[in-house]
């Protein structure tokens, strides 16, 4: 019974991490740099939804759709206004990483400035009595989080494998120079990867603000987890990063069973360091 509860909790944690990690990993594998500001896109998306739904009183589903669109455009505009400029100056991916950390701090501070530091709640699906499955308790909200996350992950997989755009993204991820040679514009595909990755960040933002509360720094802590998950699974493999996310969710909940909950944050870093030391390319990533 405790084990069933552990599994369900891991699934909930993993589902959120998987959304964070998959969007991040799509952008990383296509554009070949670490876009930490991905976390800020999640935060800003959460506040955007809060603003539309709570402050302006929009219909929730309409507000949520606008939020996904907004997140997607926000990510793409970061790419066009900041990253693209740096790339045309032939900046290294280390410079892009530094810029992304700067953007993360800037955007989260901006959210703090506009919305204040107090914790916000959406309260769309009020916390209700849990359902019992095999002796484990799960709330309807958590069921929604898991299902939504799984649907998004499956749709992303289909998009990457079956559509022309998905194949082009994988081609650019595989060999950018060769993609240019067959007439695929890498810059255009970079932009598509930001649109797609950031729309997933928007969905993550919605689910996180439903399941937890909104705080200006939530993107940073989610990004740390998402990054750890991506490294564990293999940074350049989207499937690997999803696997890493569920593994990390499981490890955190398993650890919570043995250690005081304050150690929960340490588990992600312990796993990250272990993988960096012993299997730096992750579970499914390529070695080069």
């Amino acid at each position, binding site marked *: 019974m405790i084990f069933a509860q552990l599994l369900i909790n891991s699934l909930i944690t993993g589902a959120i991490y998987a959304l964070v990690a998959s969007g991040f990993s799509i952008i990383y594998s296509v554009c070949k740099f670490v876009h930490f500001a991905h976390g800020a896109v999640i935060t800003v998306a959460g506040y955007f939804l809060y603003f539309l739904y709570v402050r302006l009183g929009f219909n929730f589903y309409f507000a949520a759709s606008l939020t996904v669109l907004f997140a997607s455009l926000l990510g793409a505009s970061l790419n066009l206004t900041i990253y693209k400029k740096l790339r045309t100056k032939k900046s290294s991916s280390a410079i892009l990483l530094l810029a992304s950390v700067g953007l993360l701090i800037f955007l989260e501070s901006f959210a703090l400035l506009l919305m204040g530091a107090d914790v916000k709640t959406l309260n769309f699906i009020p916390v209700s009595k849990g359902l019992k499955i095999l002796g484990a308790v799960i709330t309807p909200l958590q069921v929604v989080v898991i299902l939504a996350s799984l649907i998004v992950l499956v749709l992303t997989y289909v998009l990457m494998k079956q559509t*022309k755009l998905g194949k082009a993204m994988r081609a650019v991820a595989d060999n950018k120079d060769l993609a240019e040679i*067959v*007439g695929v514009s890498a810059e255009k595909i970079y932009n598509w990867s930001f649109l797609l990755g950031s729309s997933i960040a928007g969905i993550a933002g919605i689910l996180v603000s439903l399941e937890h509360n909104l705080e200006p720094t939530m993107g940073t802590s989610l990004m740390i987890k998402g990054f750890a998950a991506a490294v564990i699974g293999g940074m350049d493999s989207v499937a690997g990063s999803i696997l890493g996310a569920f593994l990390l969710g499981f490890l955190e909940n398993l650890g919570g069973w043995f250690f005081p909950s304050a150690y929960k944050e340490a588990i992600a870093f312990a796993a990250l360091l272990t993988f960096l030391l012993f299997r730096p390319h992750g579970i499914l990533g390529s070695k080069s």
Partner: protein
Amino acid sequence: MLKVENLSAGYSGIEVIKGVNFCIGSSEIVLILGPNGTGKSTFLKSLFKLADIYSGKIWFFGKDITQFLTHQIIDFGISYVPQGRPVFSQLTVLENLEMGFWLFSDRFNLGKSLERVFQEFPVLEAKKHLPANSLSGGEQQMLAISRALMQHPKLILLDEPSLGLSPKLSKQIFSKLVKLKQQNLSIILVEQNARGAAEIADRICIFVDGQIGLEGDRELLRDPRVKELYLGGL
């Protein structure tokens, strides 16, 4: 069909190609030889706008294409197969070919284009759902050439297709090139494997320090000056 006038090109301000005059007709294979570092690959890249062009003109079917970009040049009917094993290694064979088709999906039929390529290289059809990195070196080279064929080109720029292949496989690739030529295709072929490639070439140009030093038919290889070039003196 392709005419190059006094072309100078290179990378970030450094001139590698220094005033090349060159032409190729339809259904012709022109072989480009020369010691390493004489600008053979850069010449192909400059035709495909992957190197910077400093001066000179490139004409294709009477149209000045010097200022156009890579994807426009593909559109005009020039395809490029770079050196090495230039395939998308994680993508399947079929996906590799589809990527070749990227710019052409509204103009040609994918199924028919694939059929044509598979007819030429049946081994690729048998392995079409396997990732490209599971193919042998020769098969990967065939895949790279097939990907170029998916673009329905009139001219293919081919950089060292026999690199790292056994003599038997090189011969196979070369005989395929002859077959493509018979289907009204022109090929500019850069090679280290001078003897094997010379057998299929209609003309040979030898690059010396960014320029065409010697030019002739396949008898050119017997010229004593060629030996001198390769051994370093002129």
